[in-house]
């Protein structure tokens, strides 16, 4: 009798798991729009919904470590040690670029040229005026005002700041030793805006300012962007092609869990401030069926989600990277050690 009860209970549990199929995830805010778009389309096709809470990368990492979600999402990749310590597998989903936004009277979008070293000097407070000889040297004929530069930064911890400061650390030794790379750093000068909207409001309202925002945000809000010199010495326009060019030349296996930086990659047309956003799952999940559903969702997004990503100004991963990720999923196993994907 008792056995029968347990069996029925187990059966109910199983069917329950099969029906209550919402995938749970939490983390980064940057990919939230595309994850919800994908989830909407995926639900129509498969009937499986996604419950994604965009609570920030730090929160996503905390939640996946606490095993309260099937996957965590983070903009700043975890290091190899952290991945092995917590038994996590990490892989990229989609990419985006960060662009400097400027507000200088008489300067049109894409007219001002800057280099990474110069941006670092500006945010360190060493280059103070727009007509500084170093800026003029890059811009030839462009008429720049004799006005103080007002740098604007993200005051909340964010993946955007991580990508931006990682880029500055790569191109400026001074930045690397004094400030470093993180989701929030100790800014020596400037004003802080909360969120993309806070930065863009300040850049729009404060004359002679410079800020940095996600490309999608800059495009949708028509902020004037500056061009940035890439590793090959060119000034490509920020768009999906130049972001993809940055990803094409990268060696994704350089770091565990694909956790490489796409900043300052070689390539004639590569945009220098580019980054991927990542998902985290447990390699030996307690509830394999949940993680299996999550991986199926990402697999579907890799196959059919590229156009949706482009529509929202995100950039899909190169096909070979997607294959490498699928290969890495073999490391996700059920308790018996069998790969679940």
């Amino acid at each position, binding site marked *: 009798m008792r056995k029968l009860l347990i069996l029925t209970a187990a059966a109910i549990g199983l069917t329950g798991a099969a029906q209550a199929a919402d995938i749970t995830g939490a983390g980064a805010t940057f990919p939230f729009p595309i994850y919800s778009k994908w989830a909407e389309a995926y639900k129509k096709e498969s009937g499986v919904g996604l419950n994604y809470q965009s609570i920030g990368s730090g929160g996503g990492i905390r939640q996946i470590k606490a095993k309260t979600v099937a996957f965590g999402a983070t903009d700043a990749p975890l290091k190899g040690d952290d991945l092995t310590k917590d038994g996590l597998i990490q892989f990229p989903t989609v990419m985006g670029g960060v662009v400097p936004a400027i507000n200088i009277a008489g300067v049109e979008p894409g007219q001002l040229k800057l280099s990474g070293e110069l941006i670092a000097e500006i945010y360190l407070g060493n280059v103070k005026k727009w007509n500084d000889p170093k800026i003029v040297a890059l811009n030839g004929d462009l008429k720049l005002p004799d006005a103080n530069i007002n740098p604007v930064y993200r005051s909340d911890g964010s993946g955007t700041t991580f990508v931006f400061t990682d880029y500055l650390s790569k191109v400026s030794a001074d930045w690397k030793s004094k400030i470093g790379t993180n989701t929030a750093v100790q800014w020596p000068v400037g004003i802080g805006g909360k969120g993309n909207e806070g930065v863009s409001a300040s850049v729009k309202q*404060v004359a002679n*300012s410079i800020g940095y925002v996600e490309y999608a945000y800059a495009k949708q809000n028509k902020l004037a962007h500056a061009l940035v010199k890439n590793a090959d010495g060119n000034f490509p326009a920020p768009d999906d092609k130049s972001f993809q060019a940055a990803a094409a030349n990268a060696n994704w296996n350089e770091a565990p869990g694909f956790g490489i930086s796409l900043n300052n990659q070689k390539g004639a047309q590569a945009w220098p401030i580019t980054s991927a956003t990542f998902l985290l799952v447990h390699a030996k999940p307690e509830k394999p069926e949940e993680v299996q559903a999550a991986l199926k969702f990402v697999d579907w997004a890799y196959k059919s989600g590229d156009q949706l990503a482009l529509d929202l100004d995100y950039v899909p991963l190169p096909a070979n990277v997607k294959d490498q990720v699928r290969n890495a999923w073999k490391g996700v196993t059920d308790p018996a050690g069998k790969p679940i994907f």
Partner: protein
Amino acid sequence: MSAVTDQFAVPSAPVRKTPMGTFDLVFRNASLLAALFVLVLLAGIMVSMVVGGWPAFREFGLGFITSSVWDTQNEQYGAWPAIVGTLSTALIALVVGVPLSLGIAVFLTQLAPPWFKQPVSTAIELLAAVPSIIYGMWGLFVFAPLFAAYVQIPLSSLVEGMPIVGTILYSRSPSGLGILSAGIILAFMIIPFIASITRDMLDQIPSVLRESAYGIGATTWEVVRHVLVPQAGVSIIGAIMLGLGRALGETMAVTFVVGNANRLSASVMDPGSTIASRIANEFNEALGLQLNALIALGCILFFVTFVVLVIARLLVARVKRY
């Protein structure tokens, strides 16, 4: 004589009915439970904040309060700029907000014609109901640009080079965001509280006091200064302290307009940060020691608010004595 005592004879004490006894007991315990709940809640919050913040206090000791470094890269944390920002924005809020609030309350209770009193009273109550994020958005998108164009830029060019004011009021980057802007927005937010409590208190003063003062020839100012304010003094201080409490802990509105710079600056026009704004900014992405440091910041805010409340109690006690 005996007839009189008979007339006012007190009837023997009524006998207590038993069912009411049970009800009384239940009622008594239920209200005791409600009171205990507050204490348990407060103790729980305090314990979890001290436990959460302990690693930061242990790591940096007293240096956590006096240090101005907030470096996530090298895991060095100091609360001083945030403490200074919290106290200075709250002080500005009081300096701007209290006179306005008292003016509103006196006008409404003593001077306003009845047809004007009601709309202003309703407007104040509506202001109190506006969510703080709305004040923040309004501050960022509407107030800050106007403040930059009509106050910061002209004022900066006026005071530039002057001793003292040339430092305190000079803005290097006139963005409209900073300690002073945050203080002004906070003032707008605490005015409804202080004004409406003070108005209610002034209304409660027996009109016979006021009328006798007018009767002996006192002017409106003299009545307010020598009759109303001394009568309502304790309550007015209480109302101000309530406003101060809100100003110290306000988060979203301040985060939008304070400029969020983790640095000390001599100028009130420069961006700064408060304890609450820094927690709001960094909590989402904080890990490890940074998270401990943020919770420790919360502890300090708790302590600062506690000290302010104690000072308020002492003030009230002093005023009562006279």
